[in-house]
């Protein structure tokens, strides 16, 4: 995603990126970054929570308006309740192919080491 922000910005269009991983965005280099401590797949808030989504969007528009240099970062203070449940809920019901493969590789490596 940092690549797309840079390509669009370089084409003469101002961009603002809202992300749950602002540290990665900052390390890779993105014009304007807004960090939210929301679970993956829920960048702008809970489904059906219009006011929550609007708050994040309006903050992003403010950063878009006020930022004066590349790699500007602002972290938003909003909290996502029920961490213990949501740290599980955001995951897909079935592991992504690459995750399943890496887990299987790790299991086999452990098997070899213990035999």
């Amino acid at each position, binding site marked *: *995603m940092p690549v797309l922000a840079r390509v*669009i910005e370089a084409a003469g*269009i101002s961009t603002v990126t809202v*992300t749950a991983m602002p540290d990665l965005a900052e390390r890779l280099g993105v014009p304007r970054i807004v960090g939210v401590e929301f679970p993956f797949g829920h960048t702008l808030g809970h489904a059906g929570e219009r006011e929550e989504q609007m708050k994040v969007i309006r903050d*992003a528009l403010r950063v878009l*308006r006020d930022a004066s240099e590349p790699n500007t970062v602002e972290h938003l203070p909003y909290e996502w309740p029920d961490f213990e449940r949501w740290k599980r*809920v955001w995951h897909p019901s079935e592991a992504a192919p690459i995750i399943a493969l890496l887990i299987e590789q790790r299991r086999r490596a452990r098997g070899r080491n213990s035999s």
Partner: protein
Amino acid sequence: MAIDSYKWLPGSFANYYKTLPLEKAESIPWTPLAKPIEECCFSLVATAGLYVKGKEPSFDLDGERKNPFWGDPTYRTISRDVKQEEIGVAHFHINTADLETDLNIALPVHRFLELEAAGEIGSLAPTSYSVMGYQGNPPNTNEWENRYGPEMAARMKEEGVDAVLLTPV
């Protein structure tokens, strides 16, 4: 306050990303906002794997299943008059249930129409965009950089877009 970028990841993944050596872009482009927000035309880009059922194909998840080290680099267009029930979601790496009930948590088309109606932005452009965020392991963003990104940007320019909200998921 500083938020924790790795809060939601299992411990081993969190440590991996925290210590992953990343190469920062040599130069970060900068386009100052050309006009007040209230006059800007906006487009939106999300990495959520959204597509409009029956209008454009889904993302190539079969290809990713065959080669887990690869992710579909193409993009889909989402029109400003899209309805929630037309939205499909193709993404192996997140729980997509909430996106299937409210695309606005990643691609806030309906929120931006409300901002347009309220005069808080100039307009939402005819077209917004969706990609599927997983670009392989290790990630290969060459197609985004050299082909699909410039294609999206060119269409945005044609539609008079001044500013873009990007939302990786």
